[in-house]
């Protein structure tokens, strides 16, 4: 009744191929952007930004990056944590080496550096597939973490091996360091998240994305119809690395401010981002957001309800949190193996016909 496309006429191909072809969707999207950019910055406090919004936005970027590789191109990767570490350390070296350049460009450059590293580790994908590739990227994960722990140059020879983000400003307002106003950190990450999502969306429905999907669906067939697997796979690794690198750079510089590579970018991080992609929905940009929201917001929400609301002991709540999140993951994957994105799609289909399904 409310959600339908009747009367929404398209008169050109451009209209037909837009991201949100249904008017209600489009307006909803504009409204969401308006709230995110125009309203939320005035409402947020330290807690909201540092515990909820920043991790959500940053993990969403990482999930988009991994989704391009796993969901669109079908190359399984367990190296996300390592690649995020490349982004973080690239950003650190750039921030401390070239303090006069704006942090905005440092983050983008970190993405570029990560893309290069990611391509390097993507080379084996031309020969090995599936589980074997997963193991090769697992090697990247452990090698990169070991490298950043081992070579002093990466952490400027600090005694503890930690890297700390110095204060950097955009338009005179600090976005990194401890003195940054929460809204500035939020807006800085939001710009990157929206930008990455737009780029990813347009790449995946263009020629590059179609090539990736052809490789994913059947690489031999794709090769026969003229898709160059070398170019397709390596571009997927490069684009994925670019996003993951940006996520790593923001994770370090804006969100945490100080990083210990083994703890922040260990194998757990790779799995976390992979789970976001799988739960959100492989091959869906919306799914990346949904998965990130699910795995970032749900634990915080549960903690606040169980400890803050019900006053239960913290250890009991922490254990319950594991059980509830784990059970929900199982339930979601059994009920809808294609993830939250598919659930959302089905809901929309049903809503279109509601309340007259016949």
């Amino acid at each position, binding site marked *: 009744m409310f959600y339908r496309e009747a009367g929404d006429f398209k008169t050109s191909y451009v209209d037909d191929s837009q991201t949100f072809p249904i008017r209600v969707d489009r307006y909803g999207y504009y409204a*969401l952007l308006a709230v995110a950019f125009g309203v939320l910055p005035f409402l947020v406090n*330290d*807690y*909201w930004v*540092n*515990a*909820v919004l920043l*991790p959500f936005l940053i993990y969403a970027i990482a999930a988009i990056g991994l989704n391009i590789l796993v969901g669109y191109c079908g190359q399984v990767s367990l190296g996300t944590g390592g690649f995020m570490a490349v982004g973080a350390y690239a950003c650190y070296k750039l921030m401390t080496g070239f303090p006069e350049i704006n942090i905005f460009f440092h983050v983008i450059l970190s993405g570029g550096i990560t893309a290069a590293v990611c391509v390097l580790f993507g080379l084996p994908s031309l020969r090995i597939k599936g589980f074997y590739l997963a193991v090769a990227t697992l090697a990247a994960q452990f090698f990169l973490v070991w490298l950043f*722990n081992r070579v002093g140059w990466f952490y400027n020879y600090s*005694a*503890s*091996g*930690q890297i*700390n983000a*110095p204060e950097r400003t955009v338009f005179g307002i600090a976005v990194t*360091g*401890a*003195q940054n106003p929460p809204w500035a950190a939020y807006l800085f990450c939001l710009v990157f998240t929206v930008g990455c999502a737009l780029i990813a969306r347009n790449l995946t429905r263009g020629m590059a994305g179609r090539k990736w999907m052809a490789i994913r669906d059947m690489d031999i067939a794709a090769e026969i119809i003229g898709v160059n697997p070398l170019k397709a796979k390596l571009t997927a690794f490069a684009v994925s690395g670019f996003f993951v690198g940006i996520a790593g750079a923001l994770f370090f510089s804006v969100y*945490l*401010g*100080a990083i*210990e590579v*083994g*703890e*922040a970018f*260990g194998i757990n991080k790779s799995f976390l981002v992979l789970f976001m992609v799988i739960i959100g929905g492989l091959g869906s940009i919306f799914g990346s*957001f*949904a998965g990130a*929201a*699910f795995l970032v*917001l*749900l634990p*915080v*929400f549960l*903690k*606040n*309800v169980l*400890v*803050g*609301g019900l006053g239960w*002991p*913290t*250890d009991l*709540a*922490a*254990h319950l949190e*594991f059980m509830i999140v784990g059970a929900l993951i199982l339930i979601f994957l059994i009920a809808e193996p294609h993830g939250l994105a598919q659930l959302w799609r089905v809901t929309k289909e049903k809503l279109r016909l509601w309340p007259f399904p016949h």
Partner: protein
Amino acid sequence: MKQTLKIAAIAALMATGPALADLTIPDTSYRTGPYAPNGIPFSDGYQDYFTLLNERDGGIGGERINLVECETAYNTEKGVECYEATKSAGNGALLYQPLSTGIAYQLIPKATADGIPLHTMGYGRTSAKNGSVFEWVFNYPANYWDAASHAITHILEQNGGDISGKKITLLYHNSAYGKEPIRTLEELGRKHGYELTTVPVDHPGQEQKSQWLQIRRDRPDYVIMWGWGAMNQVAVQEAVNIRFPMENFIGNWYSGAESDVRGAGAGATGYKTVTFHSLGRDYPLYDEIQRYVVDAGKAAGAGDQLGTVLYNRGLYAAMLAAEAIRTAQEIHGVSAINAAQLRDGMENLEMTEARMAALGLPNFGPEFKVTCENHGGNGYGAIAQWDAAADEFRLITDYFQSDQEIVSSLIAEDSAAYAAENGITPRC
């Protein structure tokens, strides 16, 4: 997604609901994950001491303590979430003691910006001892570099003052925490002429076969360990397995709890650890805890940790915090102090033997006086040894001072670097 956000908003509102007009102290504990065996006793001791003060004296100076617990699982991301969630609880958090070097590094700039003191007792950033650079951070009564020096001094005593040519291996948790002592041990090696090998163990440390194979091959005279959580238990077990002489295996004060050595059985007897406070439960304070806290059914956790090493450390941390609050109340003449006033209290804290005895903890820790320049005490520590038959750690030395010559110069160097990096002008 929007739905989830909405629900989360309601939840966050609920979380920040009831505001109590008390002295609010967050307890960022970890009772889950691979570090829980160490996190639980510390947190139990920390909470029980404040419960005792509330039950027996009605708080400190008439103000009750409102303890807000938050689970970090020793994870920096959760630590940040906890900090942001608790910093404005009640009338504002007074003090943080995260019991995690990783989280401490996160919180140093944040707490400094927010004006909340941070007490990293025997952990965290060692150079925070230089109070003129680190205004809001305290690490009395001793720090990691002191601990490294304590271990070496003990080895020196064992060898009649000459350890040149000896081989010493540092087995460390591969993190900021584990790397802290390396520089000090290198400097001490230059001074005393021993040969240092460093062997890292990655988080969480359940797999150490290759490290102990290396130790077995190198045949070091002594092994010093900087471990935490599950890593300690595995290391002690491995040392027993390769029949390493346990009296030559020395842990720092975070590698010396009962849970670390019990698993290895009788073979662990002789294992040594550095400590900066006394052990056991033969103190008058324990009778009061039994009476007001345990018997009243108000003990934190399962109430089964009383008298363990880390429970005592939790008590000690809480006692120092309570004494700092008392000092702050005296200086400012108000009982409902705020975080800035507590900082003044911490900076003027003086722990004397008479005071500790009056609190029911005679001889519990070294005497020290905090000043603007010195936020880290005088670096006294002692060595304790495990006796599996008696199931206890026993002090085998008196408290002795670390090599101040080396430790002080390293602290001056590191804090000067931090000041230059962050544009801080030393205060005093």
